[in-house]
């Protein structure tokens, strides 16, 4: 895993230097509209979130559960188009130092052209991409282009990932490795299984310097549990539901609460 000039790595390392796991918050772009996405993201940054993940609404989000699906369907119905992701990223990065990763299914990137997509993302101040349906085996073009523009490439590893794939995926990643906590899709769960810890341990053993855990994390207690063994904790569905139900103030309150769980050595 290459650490050279990685914004995502820097954010996780900063948290580590403060004795914490990094808190990573996800919101889909354009839900309910672009200005609110920017405002909510800045609110996350002001309330303990170390790294922001912005999703591109896509017609066929196979890794997403109902809450995120509904939000992205709403964003698309309201007219969100892919190039607006740059407005969102620029709106956030121009107002905070907290880095922004974009989470995207691959077809929208392919359609624009991988190189053009990446150059515009770099220009907007984005840190890189999280790619839920792109595995390194198919990523030759993205590997080259992300090197060219100095972008992070966050691939996923799962409880089902073989040791050989764990090594090759860790090797291909830059920034951090995204450890999927359970075999399943996004959505709040009351407990994050033992599988999550095994994924993190395996990824570390395969050479990963930073492994962040996502899928199903919704409470400060879960954050605290995962912070003990992982380098970062990713929260998505719970933040989307908070924004949906209580607007930006609810996002602020949830982030404040979640960030109480990131301590590595809770007293």
């Amino acid at each position, binding site marked *: 895993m290459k650490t050279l000039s990685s914004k995502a790595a820097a954010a996780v390392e900063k948290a580590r230097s403060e004795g914490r796991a990094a808190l990573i918050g996800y919101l889909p772009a354009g839900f309910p509209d672009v200005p609110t996405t920017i405002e909510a993201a800045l609110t996350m940054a002001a309330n303990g979130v170390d790294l922001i993940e912005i999703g591109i609404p896509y017609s066929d989000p196979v890794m997403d559960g109902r809450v995120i699906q509904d939000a992205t369907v709403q964003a698309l119905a309201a007219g969100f188009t892919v190039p607006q992701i740059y407005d969102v990223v620029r709106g956030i990065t121009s107002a905070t130092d907290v880095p922004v990763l974009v989470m995207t299914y691959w077809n929208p990137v392919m359609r624009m052209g991988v190189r053009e997509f990446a150059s515009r993302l770099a220009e907007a101040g984005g840190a890189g991409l999280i790619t839920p*349906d792109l595995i390194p085996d198919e990523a030759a073009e993205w590997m080259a282009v992300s090197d060219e523009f100095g972008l992070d490439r966050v691939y996923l590893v799962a409880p089902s990932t073989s040791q050989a794939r764990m090594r090759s995926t860790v090797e291909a990643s830059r920034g951090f490795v995204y450890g999927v906590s359970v*075999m399943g899709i996004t959505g709040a769960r009351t407990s994050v299984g033992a599988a999550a810890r095994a994924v993190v341990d395996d990824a570390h053993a395969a050479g990963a310097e930073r492994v962040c855990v996502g899928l199903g994390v919704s409470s400060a207690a879960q954050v605290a549990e995962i912070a003990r063994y992982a380098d970062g904790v990713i929260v998505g569905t719970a933040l989307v539901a908070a924004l949906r139900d209580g607007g930006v103030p609810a996002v602020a309150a949830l982030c404040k609460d979640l960030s109480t769980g990131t301590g590595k050595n809770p007293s």
Partner: protein
Amino acid sequence: MTHQDTGRASEPAAQIDGDAAAAFLSHEGRPESLRHAPGPYFGDYGGRWMPESLIAALDELQETFEAAKADPEFTAQVAELNATYAGRPSLLTEAKSFAAHAGGVRVFLKREDLNHTGSHKINNVLGQALLAKRMGKTRVIAETGAGQHGVASATAAALLGLECVVYMGAEDTRRQALNVARMQLLGAEVIPVTNGSQTLKDAINDALRDWVANVDTTHYLLGTAAGAHPFPAMVRYFHEVIGEEARAQILEQTGKLPDAVCACVGGGSNAIGIFHGFLDDPSVRLYGFEAGGDGVESGRHAATITLGRPGVLHGARSYLMQDEYGQTMESHSISAGLDYPGVGPEHAYLADIGRASYEPVTDREAMDAFQLLCRTEGIIPAIETAHALAGALKVGQRLAADLAPGEQASDKVIIVNLSGRGDKDVATAAEYFDLLPDDSAEQEIAQEGEQL
């Protein structure tokens, strides 16, 4: 292989237009044979554009499939089920009266409609259900549009003692209430899909979501030759029997290879199955007919290869109906089985190299051919299949218009893959042709698009 070698080497090279065709005939940059292409890539298409969580399951499936293919016990099991359960070999029937409308060329129908459950889909589900058992899985999941693949999956699951869950767009479960009942009678659970556009593609999305969460116990029984490796090559393998039988039958009945083979293309499974028998016979032109809906200029169609652009959906890179931002577009067709915005990657490759040609057929052309086959041959085809029949009429007329000196139209031979029977489509057709009294219960159903 049971292929007879007669005719293969002595056939004259086909006259196909275009650079791609020339490249195909010169074998430039390609392996000598197009048959049995193993994947994961077909030229630039195919691959595995899938979440990492599912890669281990795809690896397991691939290994199981490769081992099974090499295991005489497995191939014997498939052959036995095909012969004693599905009813294979299916007939090759000459359609003499229908042929009069196709320029007078000879037309032969490969009768997949006579298989158990009424379509080619049974070939694939029996094979995959056997693989599920070899992997020790106890549950299969499937997607379905009109319900044909759902019914076939429920059938195979009942036969082999597997739990079966079928994902179906909520709109379709209502419109296809009788097919839902059919699946339930066979012991399957049908889950209405209310996500996204609530169509076949969303049913596939939900099946994939189920698969990620239950992959230890569950096999995803994909119904067409699309999706991530090994699905396209594997689904084709189980349908290759169509082309093998058809090639042997036409040689026996006419003493020569056909001039053209026609099939409809949704995801592409029946088409790749029959094409496969003739891929290495350059004199045999291969035609895939896509759903042209209201006409390709109307925007309401499912002509993926004709108008789509390469992209990734459901695990494979292939032609795709997508907007300028890479969002999948909704497809439209009178035939639910062709109403899919993607297409299998091997067809994308065969299109690019010019080995097969793909053309759109409108709803109207398909329904005219549907009625013609009913009236001339006493066979009610599936509306999907009617697209292939409409295409065959055009191909026959073209062949007849382009005869060499001394040649007769009756020297030309076309095979059409009659992929399914039309019992399920009777209400749609009755409504289309205005055969129902205004106040009948059937009319009410048909207005909702019921395909029984």
